[in-house]
C-alpha cells in the first residue's frame, strides 16, 4: 500500500526498518539454506549466537558473517543458552568486540531448560548492567505486562515477550497479555518465540505488535525458504489488517447483499 509505506516504519533505537520480521539463524540444514531463507523472509535484523571457535579443526566450514554480511543486515547477537546474568553480560561484551563496538544485543537469561522461559530477576540484573555499560538492549521476557513495562522503564530499546515456549510453535498462547503489553508500551514490542506458522505471525501483528522474531518456525518447516516467504507475507498481512482496522465481530449474521430490490417476496 504505497500510501502508508512512508510513515509505517519500525524504529529500533532510532534506526528505521521496512521489515517487521526478525529472524534467527539456528537449525538450518546448511549456510546456503540459511542465506536463502533470510533473503526470502525479507528480514533486515538477523540474530545469531556466540560460541567458541574451533581450535584447529574443520577450518573451512562456512562462516555465518559471510552468509549474513553486517553491511547488509543489522546483526543482533543474542545470549541464547545463558542461565545467569554474568554469562549473559560476558556474552554481550564478546559480541560487541566481535562486531567492532556494535552495541545492539538481544538479551535472554533463561530460567529453566524445559520451558526456556526467562529468569526474570536475573534478566533484570543483566539489563541494568548492560545498559550502564552502554548497550542497547532488546530484552526477551515472559508475557507479564508488569514486567514488560519494567523493562521499558529500565531503558530497553525493545521489549520482546514470548508468545509460547521457544521452539514450541504453539502460537500466541495469551493474546490478552500481549495486547495489554502493546497498549502500555512506548518502545517497540516484538513477539519473540512460539510462533509456528504464518497465521500466528499475522495474529501477533493484528494485536498491535511492532514486529515478530522467529527461527524454528522457518528453519523446521519442510520447505524453510517457502515458509520464510509465507512469514514475510503473514507479517505484512497482519500489520496491514491492524492499520486498516478490522470489522466488528458479531454473534449473528449480517447480509452482504441488499434486501430491497429482490424480485421475489
Amino acid at each position, binding site marked *: 500500500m504505497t500510501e502508508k509505506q512512508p510513515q509505517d516504519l519500525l524504529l529500533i533505537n532510532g534506526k528505521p526498518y521496512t521489515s517487521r520480521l526478525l529472524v534467527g539463524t539456528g537449525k538450518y540444514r546448511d549456510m546456503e539454506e540459511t542465506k536463502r531463507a533470510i533473503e526470502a523472509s525479507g528480514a533486515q535484523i538477523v540474530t*545469531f*549466537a556466540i560460541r567458541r571457535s574451533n581450535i*584447529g579443526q574443520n577450518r573451512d566450514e562456512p*562462516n555465518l558473517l559471510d552468509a549474513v554480511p553486517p553491511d547488509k543486515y543489522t546483526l543482533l547477537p543474542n545470549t541464547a543458552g545463558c542461565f545467569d546474568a554474568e554469562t549473559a553480560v560476558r556474552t554481550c*561484551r564478546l*559480541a560487541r568486540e566481535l562486531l567492532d563496538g556494535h552495541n545492539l544485543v538481544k538479551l535472554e537469561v533463561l530460567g529453566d531448560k524445559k520451558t526456556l522461559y526467562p529468569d526474570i530477576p536475573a534478566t533484570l540484573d543483566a539489563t541494568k548492567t548492560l545498559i550502564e555499560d552502554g548497550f542497547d538492549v532488546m530484552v526477551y521476557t515472559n508475557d507479564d505486562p508488569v514486567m514488560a513495562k519494567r523493562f521499558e522503564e529500565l531503558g530497553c530499546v525493545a521489549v520482546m515477550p514470548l508468545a509460547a515456549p521457544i521452539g514450541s510453535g504453539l502460537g500466541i498462547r495469551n493474546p490478552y497479555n500481549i495486547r495489554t503489553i502493546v497498549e502500555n508500551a512506548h518502545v517497540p514490542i516484538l513477539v519473540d518465540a512460539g510462533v509456528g506458522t504464518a497465521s500466528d505471525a499475522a495474529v501477533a501483528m493484528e494485536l498491535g505488535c511492532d514486529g515478530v522474531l522467529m527461527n524454528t518456525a522457518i528453519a523446521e518447516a519442510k520447505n524453510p525458504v517457502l515458509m520464510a516467504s509465507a512469514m514475510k507475507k503473514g507479517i505484512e498481512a497482519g500489520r496491514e489488517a491492524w492499520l486498516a482496522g478490522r470489522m466488528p465481530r458479531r454473534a449473528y449474521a449480517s447480509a452482504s447483499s441488499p434486501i430491497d430490490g429482490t424480485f421475489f417476496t
Partner: protein
Amino acid sequence: MQVFINGKQTELPSGTSVQNLIEQFDIRDKVAVEINEEIVSRSRFELHTLEDGDRVEIVRAIGGG
C-alpha cells in the same frame, strides 16, 4: 607455560601473544577474545602476551535464534 584455550589445557612458549595464538591455530573466522573474563580488543592482539595459567576464550558468531 600452561594456558587454557577454550577450556583445553595447552602448552605454549612463554611470550606468546594473542596474535601468535590466532596464527598458530590458523583461526580464519572473525573472533573475539577474552582472557580471564576480560575482553582483549583486536587492536591489542599483537601486544597482549599470555601468562601461565591464563584462561583464554576465543569465540565467533554461529547460527542461533
